[in-house]
């Protein structure tokens, strides 16, 4: 019964979305306030209905209602409670329901917090948002209904993919979707502005918090996914350039570009058409990501659904929204005349360079991701594009961004002098290069990757610090220190996020350059040495978990004669899902992780054991979290809370209608 109510609520939400798509838009065109006012209650109502649908599906999972097809396929009575919850979105249908739940949450937030928007813009934004909703409700109800019943319910379910039974991955999809779907707000704002034919500083200010929020959720989501891969896959890889990872990475890159260019719109009223285009593309890449994941075109593990019907449906959604928005863009972009004037060397051009690098980097990822498909269809060549391609074709862009970032961040608006911007940075540059040289000298006979990582990391992190310090103006150090605490949070956010990127860049270079690997047959009680550490396999025993069996090894780690850790790597087997997983045991350290994996028993005694020393591993995700924190600081800046409205009337702007 509860399930049927949820199903019905979802259909009601579909109907409400259709109304919200049509009525406020007509109202905005005709300037009928009563029609425009339909948007807000409708947005709230949509959210309430979808939340009810989601709650009822969650109830079905938690109560193990196996008369529901989805629950049977993805749950089991013995599954721990947390994974009964996360099982709701650990499958295609449920994850799409989560998708629309977040979509309506964003729509409703725009209605709740959009009080300072001009009524016309708000009505149009909510109407576009509802249009996206309509498409996805139709997708769910017609091709992937989570509320399908089974005629004969089985006694027990088939369990969730054991790889997904993990705390890191339980929260990975919600964050990722908050990011993907958050970009729909930027898209709605862009399309609404195109319909209105007006983009000004106020628009830049409104669209920026949504983009920032989407970007920071994406950052956290990607970091969680990468961290999960690191500890779960059994050899400590953290990024694979898998199509599905790329699907989340492309919107991240575009969103990063967008939230920078929106600053230019806000402060200088330039780069307007470009910013609109980025907002459209960012959501376009989110849809492409959904398409890649959901259609199984470029199959990988994440492709729960290998159903062409669904793929075609999402492709149609993509075609309608991208085609429509880009047509509108082509027709109206000319009206977005820029007002701000700036010199060749200025913060405007700095941000433009950032945008070019990020956008082209996203383009490279896109080309590499779809190339196997294109090559097969157009040139009849069956080939692969894997990590080595992306490392070669993508990394230069990140290096360029890291090199330019501290300089660009210090340039003033309108007109700048490179010499002046560089003045506080020479010391940083010298220090970074010297440290790099020192590291180079210390690690004889290895690649340049490590030292380059040190140089770039220090340059970016210290550059961010210099940037923040320079904001305190002149005066005695004491006075500047006092001013430092009173700087706007946006300044802190900028420097924090930039420093986070520096940390991640350094950590990736460090782990790739300096990790140590050891593979061997270990006999019980015999100690062997890896990178100065003594490793000793004590015993391997069989353990029974709630829904799995496990061979658990006990391995002691020594530094000299002192025992520093005892680790328990496992090899698990999930009988219901009939699937094995490796559970690496990791001793997290600030400077390096000790990463142990147990393999098979060997003929003639002993077990295969893999030992890794992973330097600065946690800094990769630490940097990402710091980036997200920077975004959060920026988001909490007072200019978004106080008087964010008040669009200054600009005599120059003429509506295109």
């Amino acid at each position, binding site marked *: 019964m509860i399930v049927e109510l949820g199903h019905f609520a979802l259909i009601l939400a579909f109907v409400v979305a259709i109304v919200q798509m049509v009525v406020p838009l007509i109202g905005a065109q005709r300037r009928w306030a009563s029609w425009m006012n339909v948007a807000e209650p409708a947005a709230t109502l949509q959210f309430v209905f979808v939340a009810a649908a989601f709650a009822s599906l969650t109830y079905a999972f938690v109560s193990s209602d196996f008369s529901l097809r989805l629950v049977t396929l993805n749950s089991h009575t013995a599954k721990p409670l947390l994974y009964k919850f996360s099982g709701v979105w650990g499958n295609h249908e449920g994850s799409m329901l989560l998708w629309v739940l977040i979509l309506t949450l964003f729509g409703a937030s725009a209605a709740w917090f959009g009080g300072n928007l001009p009524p016309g813009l708000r009505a149009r934004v909510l109407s576009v948002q509802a249009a996206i909703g309509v498409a996805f409700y139709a997708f769910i109800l017609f091709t992937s209904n989570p509320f399908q019943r089974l005629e004969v319910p089985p006694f027990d379910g088939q369990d969730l993919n054991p*790889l997904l039974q993990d705390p890191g991955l339980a929260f990975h999809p919600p964050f990722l979707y908050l990011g993907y779907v958050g970009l729909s707000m930027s898209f709605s704002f862009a399309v609404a502005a195109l319909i209105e034919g007006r983009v000004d500083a106020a628009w830049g200010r409104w669209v920026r918090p949504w983009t920032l929020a989407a970007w920071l959720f994406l950052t956290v989501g990607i970091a969680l996914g990468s961290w999960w*891969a690191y500890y*779960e*896959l*059994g*050899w400590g*890889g953290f990024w*694979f*350039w*898998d*199509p599905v990872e790329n699907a989340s990475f492309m919107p991240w890159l575009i969103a990063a570009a967008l939230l920078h260019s929106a600053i230019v719109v806000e402060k200088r009223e*330039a780069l307007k058409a470009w910013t609109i285009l980025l907002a459209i593309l960012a959501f376009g890449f989110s849809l492409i990501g959904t398409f890649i994941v959901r259609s199984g075109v470029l*199959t*990988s*593990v994440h492709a729960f659904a290998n159903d062409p019907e669904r793929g075609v449906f999402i492709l149609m959604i993509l075609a309608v929204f991208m085609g429509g928005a880009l047509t509108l863009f082509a027709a109206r972009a000319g009206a977005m005349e*820029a007002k701000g*004037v*700036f*010199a*060749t060397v200025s913060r*405007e*051009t700095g941000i*433009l*360079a950032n945008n*070019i690098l990020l*956008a*082209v980097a996203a*383009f*490279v990822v896109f080309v*590499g991701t779809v*190339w196997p498909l294109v*090559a097969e269809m*157009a*040139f009849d*060549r*069956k*080939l*692969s*594009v*894997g*990590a*080595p*391609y992306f490392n*070669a*074709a993508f990394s230069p862009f990140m290096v360029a961004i890291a090199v330019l970032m501290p300089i660009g961040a210090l340039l003033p608006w309108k*007109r700048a*002098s490179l010499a002046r911007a560089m003045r506080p940075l020479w010391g940083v540059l010298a220090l970074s290069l010297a440290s790099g040289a020192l590291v180079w000298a210390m690690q004889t006979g290895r690649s340049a990757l490590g030292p380059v990582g040190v140089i770039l990391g220090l340059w970016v992190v210290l550059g961010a610090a210099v940037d923040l310090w320079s904001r305190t103006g002149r005066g005695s150090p004491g006075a500047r220190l006092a001013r430092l605490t009173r700087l706007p949070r946006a300044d802190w956010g900028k420097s924090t996020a930039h420093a986070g990127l520096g940390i991640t860049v350094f950590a990736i270079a460090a782990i790739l350059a300096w990790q140590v690997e050891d*593979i061997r*047959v270990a006999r019980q009680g015999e100690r062997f040495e890896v990178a100065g550490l003594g490793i000793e396999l004590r015993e391997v025993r069989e353990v029974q978990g709630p829904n799995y069996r496990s061979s658990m090894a006990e391995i002691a780690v020594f530094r000299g004669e002192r025992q520093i850790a005892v680790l328990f790597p496992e*090899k698990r087997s999930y009988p219901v899902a009939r*699937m*094995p*997983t*490796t559970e690496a045991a990791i001793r997290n350290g600030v400077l390096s992780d000790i990463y142990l*994996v147990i*393999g*098979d028993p*060997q003929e003639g005694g002993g077990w*295969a054991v893999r030992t890794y020393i992973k330097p600065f591993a946690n800094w990769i995700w630490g940097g990402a979290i710091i980036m997200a924190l920077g975004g959060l600081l920026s988001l909490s800046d007072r200019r978004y809370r106080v008087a964010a409205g008040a669009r200054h009337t600009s005599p*120059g702007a003429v509506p295109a209608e």
Partner: protein
Amino acid sequence: MRRLLLLLAFLASPAFAVQPDEILDDPALEARARDISAGLRCLVCRNESIDESNADLARDLRLLVRERLTAGDSDAEAVVFIVERYGEYVLLKPTASGSNLILWIAGPLMLVLALAGAGVYVARRRRSPEPAEGGLSEAEEARLAEILKE
């Protein structure tokens, strides 16, 4: 993850990629073998190199690479040997030949185009007169630039 999903498909027993018994005695040779393996795709896996995969086929390929290297092949010869037998699908880094040139050129070309577009935009922004009040004439602009340069 791909590795494990593969296991799901083949219902193999858990194992991990490079096994202790595969490792060559000569560390330099082994290092070369690892480098080559990282660039070769495990044919039955999703986007995974033979170095990471624990499929049987990946193991066969790893042993083949090591066999070739011990027989005195150079890295390139060993790779060619494998590509001749398994097709260019095994290469994770596609060759820059024929239609693949598009793949390799797309990024740099886009960068050049974007820089050119941005150059035109910046030039136009720089030249366009300051709107509304406070605008400077070109002569004033030039003078100001001179002053700022000093």
